[in-house]
């Protein structure tokens, strides 16, 4: 068994080393794959806060991923066509600035998560899964039927957005930007897990009666966790859209929700670095198995089944064992 801290550090180093090696070998496609893994990891880290630490099985996180994506798409589309988003009551222009897009994506998906959470969290168990799924599908069909932003065809953005004068069209620069954001998000979640809020949230997941008996309402804890979770996944959506320079309703589809959940389960539910391992493994499998067969999802399914049956802690649990309370 490897200490979890060592494993996590190794994971981060590997995630950085692969694109660096690809840069030296002049394999830009590998860098793009690594960037995908990093962005998916951010989405998974977001979901994990609700799913792993709060025990909230949300099958609607594509809603936040998509909102993040469309926040980027809409702002950038207006910027590239030089038309304002709205002119009344105040003029809002589009933008190509990444920090503004990130903030907008995070804020918009947080607001959506707050609303969806406030309604969905009145239910539990399978009903919660269904209602979050329903909200996700609502956004999906809304995006399809909204012609102003491409409808079913989605939105294409010609040039990647900009940040601090860096050349974001350079794959390595964009990778490093995403990687830095992943580190920030991991730090945030690691802090939350050890915080008073994290303790109470974890207790609510295990036993709601206990939390009520000490004078706290599980609903409020869940709602805050769900909101932060949605915001983080929304940020990933904005980055994903920027990576592809394309946004489409697929980002809202329930398959997307399922994939984000797969990252979490593969890597380890309720482990801070779980989704990083899960997303990286997913990308590797997609690439390797996808090269072998069109039907690579069958093999992915078998692996997922194996992990669920034999390694409840996912990849991290398999390698680092049960979580240790270090303080």
């Amino acid at each position: 068994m490897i200490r979890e801290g060592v494993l996590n550090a190794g994971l981060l180093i590997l995630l950085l080393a692969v694109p660096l090696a690809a840069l030296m070998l002049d394999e830009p496609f590998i860098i793009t794959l690594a960037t995908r893994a990093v962005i998916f990891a951010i989405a998974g880290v977001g979901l994990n806060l609700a799913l792993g630490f709060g025990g909230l099985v949300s099958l609607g996180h594509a809603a936040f991923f998509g909102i993040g994506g469309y926040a980027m798409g809409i702002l950038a589309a207006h910027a590239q066509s030089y038309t304002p988003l709205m002119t009344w009551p105040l003029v809002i222009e589009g933008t190509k600035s990444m920090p503004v897009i990130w903030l907008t994506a995070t804020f918009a998906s947080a607001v959506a998560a707050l609303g969806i959470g406030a309604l969905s969290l009145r239910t539990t168990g399978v009903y919660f899964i269904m209602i979050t799924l329903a909200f996700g599908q609502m956004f999906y069909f809304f995006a399809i039927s909204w012609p102003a932003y491409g409808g079913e065809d989605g939105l294409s953005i010609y040039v990647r957005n900009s940040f601090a004068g860096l050349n974001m069209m350079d794959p390595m620069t964009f990778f490093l930007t995403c990687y830095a954001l992943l580190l920030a998000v991991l730090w945030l979640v690691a802090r939350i897990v050890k915080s008073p809020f994290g303790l109470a949230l974890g207790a609510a997941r295990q036993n709601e009666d206990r939390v009520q008996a000490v004078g706290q309402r599980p609903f409020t804890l869940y709602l805050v966790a769900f909101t932060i979770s949605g915001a983080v996944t929304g940020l990933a959506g904005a980055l994903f859209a920027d990576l592809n320079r394309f946004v489409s309703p697929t980002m809202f589809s329930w398959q997307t929700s399922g994939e984000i959940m797969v990252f979490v389960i593969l890597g380890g539910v309720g482990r801070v670095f779980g989704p990083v391992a899960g997303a990286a493994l997913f990308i590797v499998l997609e690439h390797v198995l996808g090269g072998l067969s069109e039907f690579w999802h069958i093999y992915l399914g078998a692996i997922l089944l194996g992990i669920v049956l034999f390694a409840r802690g996912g990849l991290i649990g398999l390698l680092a064992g049960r979580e240790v309370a270090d303080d």
Partner: protein
Amino acid sequence: MTDPILATDGITRSFGALVASKDITLDLRPGEIHALIGPNGAGKSTLIQQIAGGLRPDSGRVLLGGADVTHLGTAARARMGIGRTFQISSLAMDHTVLQNVVLGALGHRGDVFRFFTRVMKDAELIDVAERALAQVGLSDARNMRTAELSHGQRRQLEVAVALTLNPRVFLMDEPMAGLGTEGTAQMVGFLDGLRAQAPILLIEHDMDAVFALADRISVLVYGRIIATGTADQIRANPQVREAYLGEEGAA
């Protein structure tokens, strides 16, 4: 007579045709242990739920320190000073023992929505938690996972968490359940001293423990309180002997 800290005023609650609580009026006075006994199915759990906040009575009121709390939820009542222990241990099983007690201290202090401080490095919370663990004699188990505790230790931990809330009343649902002779004797000794800190409404099946501890006993049968009095009065009450104590009471 001193004013009661906790009181129910004519609580009635039915489930369909079954009347689980029928016009129940009882009170808990400072410094006392008031035991609630009754055969299985008498409605003890339903009553406890209504006092703790998990169930609303159809009619009647629950008063805590003179204030009407009937329409408050469980969490709000806990903040107002109800320290509850559960019949079946209700703890965060994956957390450590210390984390469970710190959770109590945190819930009582109320500043749960802080995201960047390290809760297990909070000296004030740890101090409250460790004193509660020491009081119930669980200090040695502080770093164990709660799921690894023995049944008896879990009962102790339940009490320790209730202690961190510094409650005005303790509401204890069968704290001796499954403790064995030695464990029960320890718990009896502990609760005996605890009544000075806050009065205890004690639901308990163990008659020896009840008669040893209780200042007053109320007997609940089919949702109604048929008698309230001291241990001797209850022992001598023919209605109680018939309905509940049976041969045991006659012996």
